[in-house]
């Protein structure tokens, strides 16, 4: 018995590999052909090889439990990759570059002249209410004028086959290490598929990241000291922090390892004494970065760090305050933001979003709560959301009350469906929903990962791709058929 593609159905959704007719898409043909030649035993063997590789390579994510301290769990991985044709990807990549470029101009403007507000494109009251706008950042000029050096944007594909941006993660986006490790696992599982060279490589990311970070150094030295700042081993993304530090050959530091001297320079404590630090890739949230500037109870921060950054003695990536553009209400304005700063239409569409601060749109939202998804502006990870079609009458009226009480804090979207891809269940394939998170670096130049991290909901019918809630991942292949 082998995989029989004619039995595979993804009814009602766009499938990434298989057309409605049951035939594979062009870029996926070499994969589906290879898969259908595998016998059940071969499939089990490849799957076991992937699991072994994951445990040997120590790819884990951390789940914290009261009883046993923190536990590292193996990363759930599906051996059938998700494939995107390079011709389509080039368009997506251009859209991402455009988007992040505009967002950086937007952030820089908000902390300087606020032209976009004065010209009435972005409402002043939205800025006044933003919880991620950091007043201390006003007037600061970070190196190269860039605030969001690393961005992870979540993309989905709806029934119509179009790719939409679901959200932009500008604070401390994670997941890129899994993208890199997934590729290494796939190379062990199916080396023969990589021989034809259709599949574009992804392993350039750590060196691109390092070069971008080094280019931010305030000191003109040959080897600037770049470090990765982690909140510590109990953070769920600690694996990634350690992984990236290792891949870039940098020190992985915690807040207590750093000290700001009287001349407002940052040093790390080493066995040789204090050693100057030039660039910090911080994986600690803004508010915990410096107890002197932000939250006083932060135990993972560095007193005086903000001051050192303000004076230009150290570079922080991402810059404090850049989260102002990572907000579901700001999201609704991104097409306007792109038009305002770049004079272009957005290449990648947003999911249509209704803003509850606008009286017209609010009226529409309140009248259609049973059809819409309502999201609060500043929660992430799906917290505090209303999924109208699945909610009870009581939940809907509760949300109606909340929206009337604080309209600025809510946006609404139609229920988008996620596309599917064939996913291994035992030794046959079933359709499972997925999304895609590419990573965009901004320094002197921009760089977009080749593909990104594909997250897949392993439970049938589920659209929750989060790893802590039954999600897994797939390798993502950008396939170039024209090069041959």
């Amino acid at each position, binding site marked *: 018995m082998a995989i029989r593609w004619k039995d595979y159905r993804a009814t009602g959704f766009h499938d990434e590999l298989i057309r409605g007719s049951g035939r594979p898409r062009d870029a996926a043909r070499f994969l589906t052909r290879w898969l259908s030649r595998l016998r059940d035993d071969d499939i089990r063997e490849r799957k076991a090889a992937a699991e072994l590789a994951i445990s040997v390579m120590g790819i884990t994510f951390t789940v914290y439990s009261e009883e046993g301290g923190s536990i590292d769990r193996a990363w759930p991985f599906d051996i059938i990759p998700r494939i995107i044709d390079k011709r389509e990807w080039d368009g997506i990549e251009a859209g991402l570059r455009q988007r992040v470029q505009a967002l950086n101009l937007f952030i820089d403007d908000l902390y300087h002249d606020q032209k976009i507000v004065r010209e009435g494109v972005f409402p002043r009251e939205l800025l006044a209410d933003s919880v991620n706008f950091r007043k201390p950042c006003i007037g600061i000029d970070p190196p190269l004028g860039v605030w969001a050096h690393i961005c992870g944007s979540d993309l989905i594909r709806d029934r119509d086959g179009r790719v939409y941006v679901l959200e932009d993660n500008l604070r401390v986006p994670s997941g890129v290490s899994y993208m890199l490790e997934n590729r290494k696992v796939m190379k062990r599982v199916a080396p023969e598929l990589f021989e034809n060279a259709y599949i574009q490589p992804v392993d350039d990311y750590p060196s691109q990241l390092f070069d971008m970070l080094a280019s931010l150094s305030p000191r003109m030295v040959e080897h600037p000291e770049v470090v990765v700042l982690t909140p510590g081993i109990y953070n769920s993304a600690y694996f990634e922090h350690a992984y990236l530090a290792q891949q870039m050959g940098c020190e992985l530091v915690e807040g207590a*390892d750093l000290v700001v001297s009287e001349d407002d320079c940052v040093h790390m404590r080493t*066995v*040789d*004494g*204090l050693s100057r630090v030039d660039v910090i890739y911080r994986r600690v949230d803004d508010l915990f970065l410096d107890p002197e500037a932000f939250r006083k109870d932060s135990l993972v921060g560095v007193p005086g760090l903000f001051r050192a950054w303000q004076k230009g003695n150290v570079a922080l990536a991402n810059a404090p305050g850049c989260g102002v553009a990572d907000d579901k209400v700001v999201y609704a304005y991104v097409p306007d933001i792109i038009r305002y700063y770049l004079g272009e239409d957005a290449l990648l569409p947003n999911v249509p979003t209704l803003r509850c601060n606008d009286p017209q749109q609010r009226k529409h939202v309140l009248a259609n709560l049973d059809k819409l998804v309502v999201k609060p502006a500043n929660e992430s990870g799906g917290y505090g959301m209303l999924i109208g079609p699945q909610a009870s009458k009581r939940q809907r009226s509760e949300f109606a009350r909340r929206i009337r009480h604080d309209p600025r804090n809510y946006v609404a979207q139609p229920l988008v469906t996620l596309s599917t891809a064939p996913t291994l269940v035992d030794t046959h394939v079933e359709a499972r929903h997925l999304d895609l998170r590419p990573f965009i670096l901004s320094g002197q130049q921009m760089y977009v990962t080749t593909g990104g991290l594909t997250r897949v909901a392993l439970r049938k019918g589920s659209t929750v791709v989060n790893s802590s809630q039954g999600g897994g991942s797939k390798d993502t292949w950008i396939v170039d058929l024209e090069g041959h």
Partner: protein
Amino acid sequence: MLSRVANRIYWMARFLERAENMARLVNVNSHLLLDLPSRVQVGWRPLVEILGSETQFEQNHEGYDERAVVRFLVGDPQYPSSVIGSLASARENARTVRDIIPREAWEQINELYLNARKHLPSAYGQRKRYDYLNSIILGNQQVTGLLAGTMSHDTGYAFLRIGRNLERADMTSRIIDVRSADLLPSADALTPFDNIQWMSVLKSLTAYQMYRREVRLQVRRPDVINFLLRNPRFPRSIYHCISTVAGCLQDLPHNESPLRHASHLQRLMSDVTPETLDQPGLHRLIDEIQQNVADLDRLLSEAYFYVTAAGQSSA
């Protein structure tokens, strides 16, 4: 190397070594009790005393019976120096330096802890206790071998060896102390058994065979003390441990004050004359060794682990 990383490697090594030596300590007492006639039973209280842990023990236990003391020293997670407590701390420290130590070493430490916890009940009965404690000792020896054979012998490795050898010096002194005068009944009552007991001290340190090869005499108190305190070749003798620490310090930056102190400890060992040491004298000497090990630990912290903005160290 980051101070925090050096500090965690140092403590990882200390806790691993402590777990092994705690297992050795419980072993030596178990054997000692088997060798002594019932009229001179010394019981289990001395073990808790030589570890200076009476206060903590008495908080949760009524009397110093075998079961309570073994539970405390081997399986009490609240007691940081117990076998389980030490292995848990070693594991937590190892986890934070996973990117520095070879991954097999981390896996081995993790497994050692998990197995020790799983089979804990075997330590409480007399029958399986030896096997259990021996598996802890062998497990740590395996980690030591892995690290020696797969980790770069760099600054991090120097801190690992310093931690291991300081802890070993301290614990070897405590194991000798099991036989110290004021903890045992009057020396007369024990004389016929004296040699048997020193033999069990040697065996608990895996030192018996090496002692026989080097000393070539029957087991005599002054020779055993001489061997365990001053032998320059046996890796568990205090002199050897301190020499290793001094050797590692040679390669580290601004090492003046810890190195000076290590030399002082080496001299203290060289000047010992075992023939003239009575039991109270031995006990006092052991106290002095332990105090000096604690001082060396403090000097290391000042030089390497707590670097402040004001200067090189907080000292």
